[in-house]
């Protein structure tokens, strides 16, 4: 088990090198000049040249990449061109917001999604099933930013229960987590429904019922546990999706997380900030995938890692 984890962690390195090269090439091939963005629209060519020189953007690309990788090896993600602060500091100060948002959204997603899936699967093709699946179709189809704006309209504007944005205190996380979590819960609901339905018709479930086991235990102990593997997979994948969704949600709700930071950095062509935060998010995603893989063996004793 330990050697498996170690192997997986080592495998992260080429993945992250790949991500760093891909981001570097991609953002440098996007048109736009950070020096011009920073110097402002009114700046003369001379001023833009001064800024470009100060930011070290006159070096050839391979030299810039070399410097970047050298820095990475030392744990230095570089300095933001826009704010002149270390990128790592910028990320570390914003990550708690994104992590909190993602975790609360996960709770919403699993709570609502799994419950809806169970409700549907235990009475397939009933009115209850149709209603739940209609709700989940609605959830999948709604763009996150629209749902976010509707929630703001209802809970902040009309009812004035919750703040419309910001990231101070737990209250400001409720609406964005609902917006983000509800759309993912819809996917989870549909998946867990089909997964449970598949298991519920198997022989051991029928045996359990024949033995007179209570329906509640049939569902939770026998069916759900066996249907969990695909559910865990989708929960893991959705974690990445939620991190991505945080980009939009944080913008709509003016939250100071990594997502909004990435958007802002892209707008300003803040190369080190974009590279650093994407690498960071990629690393998180890889680690979450590893955790998901390890969870399989917890749920299903047949899965063993050597």
């Amino acid at each position, binding site marked *: 088990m330990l050697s498996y984890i170690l192997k997986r962690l080592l495998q992260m390195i080429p993945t992250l090198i790949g991500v760093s090269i891909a981001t570097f090439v991609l953002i440098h091939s*996007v*048109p*736009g*000049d950070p020096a*011009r*963005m*920073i*110097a*402002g*629209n*009114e*700046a*003369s*060519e*001379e*001023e833009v040249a*001064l*800024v470009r020189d*100060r930011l070290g953007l006159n070096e050839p690309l391979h030299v810039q990449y070399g410097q970047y990788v050298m820095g990475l090896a030392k744990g230095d993600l570089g300095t933001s061109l*826009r*704010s*002149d*602060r270390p990128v790592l500091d*910028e990320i570390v100060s*914003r990550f708690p917001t994104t992590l909190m948002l993602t975790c609360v959204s996960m709770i919403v997603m699993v*709570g609502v999604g799994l*419950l809806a899936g*169970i*409700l549907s699967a*235990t009475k397939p093709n009933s009115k209850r099933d149709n209603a739940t699946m209609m709700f989940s179709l609605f959830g999948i189809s709604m763009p996150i930013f629209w749902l976010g*704006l509707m929630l*703001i*309209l209802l*809970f*902040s*504007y009309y*009812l*004035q*229960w*919750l*703040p*419309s*944005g*910001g990231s*101070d205190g*737990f*209250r*400001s996380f*409720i609406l964005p987590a609902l917006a983000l979590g509800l759309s993912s819960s819809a996917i989870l609901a549909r998946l867990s429904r089909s997964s449970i339905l598949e298991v519920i018709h198997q022989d051991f479930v029928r045996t359990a019922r024949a033995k007179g086991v209570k329906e509640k235990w049939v569902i939770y102990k026998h069916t759900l546990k066996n249907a969990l593997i695909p559910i865990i997979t989708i929960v893991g994948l959705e974690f990445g999706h939620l991190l991505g969704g945080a980009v939009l949600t944080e*913008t*709509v*709700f*003016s939250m*100071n997380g990594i997502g*909004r*930071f990435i*958007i*802002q950095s892209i*707008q300003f*062509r803040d190369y080190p900030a974009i590279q650093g935060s994407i690498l960071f998010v990629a690393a998180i995603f890889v680690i979450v995938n590893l955790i998901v893989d390890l969870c399989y063996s917890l749920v299903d004793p047949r899965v063993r890692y050597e």
Partner: protein
Amino acid sequence: MKRWLSTMLLSLTLVVSACGGTSGTSGAGTEGGAQELVVAFSTEPVTLDPQDTSDGISNNANELLFDKLVTLDKNNEIVPQLAKEWSTSEDGKKMTFKLREDAKFQDGTPVNAEAVKYTFDRVLNKENKLARYSLYAEFIDKVTVDSEYQVSFQLKFPFGPALISFAHTNGGIHSPKNLQEKGKDVGKSPVGSGPYKLKEWIPGTKMVFEANEAYWGGAPKIKTIVFKPVTENSARSIMLETGEADVIVPVVTSDVERLKGNDKLKVQTEPSSRNLYISINTSKAPFDNAKVRQALNYAVDKETIASKIMAGQAKVLDAAFGEKIWGHTSVGAYPYDPEKAKQLLAEAGIQPGTTIRLWTPEGRYLMDRQIAEFIQGNLQAVGFNVVFQKWEWGAFQEAIKSPNAEFDLAVNSWGASTNDADWALRPILKTGGASNYAKYSNPKLDELIDKGMKASDPDERKKLYSEALALIKEEAPWIFLLEYKQTSGVRSNVEGVYSWSNERLILRDAVKK
């Protein structure tokens, strides 16, 4: 199962309502009461070093922290600030400022001639690579300390807009002690002599200013001012409506009517020196022909753009720059006359169906894309085949500056930050100007712009600029469109918030009841 579901729903309702309970109906932003003013902008300041600042929101912050030699009043007139009085030598090449003697920096050091010299020497030194180097290096030769409270500037040539350049936010005077201590980091922990000091800056979340009780002009009324970045336009409007923000800038055009209907807040519309125009690529046929360029101007219905698309938050431009800029003379807009446009195009030998490429940034200027789309229709109506392309701002800036840029028409805007005719024309219409996207070159106009810059007699300058504006209209290197207005949203209990026409939001005189 049903019981489980209802328990879940019940607890969700409880959580949500419990969270609501603490704030009641008052929204979330009123904890600070009359002592705190929350201002929501579309983004956050970048740096608080006035000489390295090129964006409007940083400049709004710098106006709280720093004083300059001279400043503007509510009516955009130049008034004394750190300088009590000033004079210009006969030949116009030397300016002398007498400083007030009671001003102190927030670190307790005195504001004197040394501090002024130290601040300007720093920006004039090219080695420091500050973003506003050329704003001052262009005309200042050297700075001399005449006495403790008197400082002189030797100019390279008599420079008409010199005084207004000192009134620019970029002319904020630093505490030399702080500059020496902080070095490169001065933009994060600035010390000026303004009415507010920087208390806290949490990047991406908020910037907090607290009142400088020892301010020479008297302690400010509001104790704390908080800047918050709120990117989403509609979120800013909602924050104003719920009271989470006291002031929002800008107000998106589509929300203006709704906000006006709310008696707890007011929508302030003030004139702006920002214009909107379409650069015509004069380096390419057939647009090297003034007749074709005039035809384009006749073809566009500017009145409808101002009244409908901009919902009255703009007026039709009656010269190359707006009336709030010093040196403006109305030379009249081209009337909307598609028939005349067709006739001029026929005379110039333009065939119907000629392809014309129109570029616009999206989301950079109020309603930019929507206006460009409307103009696309106008131009198609007079027989052009318009190929429309919208751009993300960063990409647009690079594409349009490329020497081989393939546009015929491009939506541009210019807000002359000095409020003076020189800066309103020189960078955008003089041959080789840094932002001359029309690639327009006319020796006669160059000469007028040059003379205007170097003349020190205001009457003479005004005459030169009125001649220049008439020439620009005739030559039509642009499709002249709008003079924007600036719109800010303010809660009704807040007074004393206003904007200069160069888009600077002034908060130092604000009062909250």
